[in-house]
């Protein structure tokens, strides 16, 4: 099944809508539409209550001024695995003029912003007993690229949420290492209407005055790592995953080292209890591959809920 556009006339450029419903115990995509440069794909699956959807952009990347806004509604008793196909590449400028006209975001206040940012907004609603597994590939901002991603999750008390948000330092083959202009990412989680977590990450190379020794460049601040990931987990279907990772974390005992490890991770449990709390895992690695392997392994208990074949489609 692929993009039958129901309400396409109502959508702005880069807009998209997904509604996942339960129909006779099966996951059924009841709304599925997207406009350029956003593209959605859904392969047929054998799993009953799980749907898998790929979020793609034409040409495999986004350029300055592109604006994507996806609204996803997961109804009761169904699970959605949302993936991307390959890393989201963010370019500074449009490589060549595209055919369709795309809504441009002009930053009116931007005395300090030279090029328009690429904006990706995603709003998710997860109803009772529903689940979202958001496991995209990392975002890679190329030299001087500016990327804003704002994700909001409205989660029911007994719904499950897994959010992976990660980024790399650039194209290593071209010698890029934290030379992006700006990376801004917000993940806001509301459980039964109450804001439980609002993670705001900002990497900004513009703030650095090259003639000053007062502050570090991004590369200095973030080295020796070139890939950072944040994972947020909550809900009934991830209790086993959380228990397993927590046990591994608590077994770590740090002795004095002379040089940093190849991969570092942390785990924090925030919020008062199982219904109102979230678990936040952060990972940093010298290579994207080792971070990917770590994630794939740490989150593997999720196989049980999405099926082994479906889980294999993430972290490829």
């Amino acid at each position, binding site marked *: 099944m692929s993009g039958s556009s129901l309400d396409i006339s109502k959508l702005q450029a880069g807009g998209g809508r997904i509604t996942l419903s339960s129909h006779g115990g099966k996951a059924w995509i009841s709304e599925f539409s997207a406009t350029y440069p956003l593209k959605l794909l859904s392969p047929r699956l054998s799993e009953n209550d799980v749907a898998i959807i790929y979020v793609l952009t034409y040409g495999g990347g986004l350029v300055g001024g592109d604006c994507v806004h996806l609204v996803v509604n997961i109804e009761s008793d169904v699970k959605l695995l949302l993936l991307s196909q390959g890393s989201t590449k963010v370019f500074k400028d449009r490589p060549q003029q595209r055919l369709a006209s795309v809504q441009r975001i002009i930053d009116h206040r931007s005395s300090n912003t030279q090029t328009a940012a690429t904006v990706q907004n995603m709003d998710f609603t997860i109803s009772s007993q529903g689940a979202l597994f958001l496991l995209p590939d990392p975002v890679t901002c190329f030299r001087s690229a500016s990327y804003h991603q704002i994700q909001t999750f409205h989660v029911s008390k007994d719904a499950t949420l897994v959010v992976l948000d990660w980024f790399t330092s650039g194209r290593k083959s071209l010698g890029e290492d934290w030379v992006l202009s700006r990376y801004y990412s917000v993940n806001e989680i509301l459980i039964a209407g109450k804001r439980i*977590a609002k993670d705001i990450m900002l990497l900004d190379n513009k703030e650095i005055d090259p003639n000053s020794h007062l502050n570090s460049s991004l590369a200095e601040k973030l080295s020796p790592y070139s890939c950072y990931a944040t994972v947020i987990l909550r809900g009934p279907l991830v209790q086993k995953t959380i228990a397993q990772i927590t046990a591994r974390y608590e077994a770590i005992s740090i002795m004095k*080292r002379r040089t940093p490890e190849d991969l570092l991770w942390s785990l924090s449990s925030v919020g008062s209890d199982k219904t109102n709390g979230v678990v936040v895992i952060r990972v940093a690695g010298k290579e994207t591959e080792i971070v990917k392997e770590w994630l794939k392994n740490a989150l593997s208990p999720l196989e049980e809920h999405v099926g082994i074949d479906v889980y294999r489609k993430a972290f490829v």
Partner: protein
Amino acid sequence: MDDETFLLLLLSDSNLPTGSFVASSGFESYTKHGFGGDDASNRTLTFMRNSISAYARSALAFVSDTHRIVQNLRLMHDQGALRNQPIDGYLDKIKELDELYDAMTLNDVTRRASKSQGVALLTLYSKGFTPSHLPITVNQPEANIETNASMALLVAKYKSLVRAEIVPGHLPICWGILTGALGLTLERSQYLHIFLHARSLLSASIRLNEIGPYNAQQILLHVSRSIIEAEVGRCKDLRTGLDLNVEGSGSVSGSGMEEDHFDGVVDGPANTWPLGEILAARHDLQHSRIFNS
């Protein structure tokens, strides 16, 4: 000596029981994990630079907005409001800021340290800065009596909310309350907050045997100053994005949420040092440790 200079002297006393002497803000974990290179003095400098910049960007908007709310209450009195000016609206606004800071602080070690230092500041105000326990009567100017009583009530009520675990009582919020209640200007409050962060990092470095006390003074005098000034300059106009106007009190200028548009990317708080965040969170995993954070 003017009031404000005297307050600055008072608040920069390193003997104040603010809890900062048990916090290294992740520095102990940073050195334990092998970061910052081989030279100890350089390690301290690099960490200080990154830590000040990250802390200012995540916390200063909360100091500022809390200070503005307390300042608004103060202004109500200066404009001749009644003695029993209701303060519940102000407490609710501060609570909102506190909860937002809590939702943005997704690391249990940092949360714990921030909360214990926060409540220590409120205790400091009620036990140390109100004259109620002195054996003599303190002569206050007539005009200040009502304002001071109202400030003391605000702090006492907020402290009881913290004790009852109704609000988290985070450090930047409580600093805004304390300095607002004492009547320190916003500009001084912001600067002093970041200065104290820098100084407590240097004390942590001394305790960890990374640098000596004379070296720490040199750094504070010749290096920290320009870093603090640069970071406060960069973050002094940041806001939380929450509407600060208390219902029924009228709009007060300087509350930060006038007609202009709030753009979180440029104007809002953020976490700018993901590596520091991971290292701070891993503090508790150290086989042996001196500090609580």
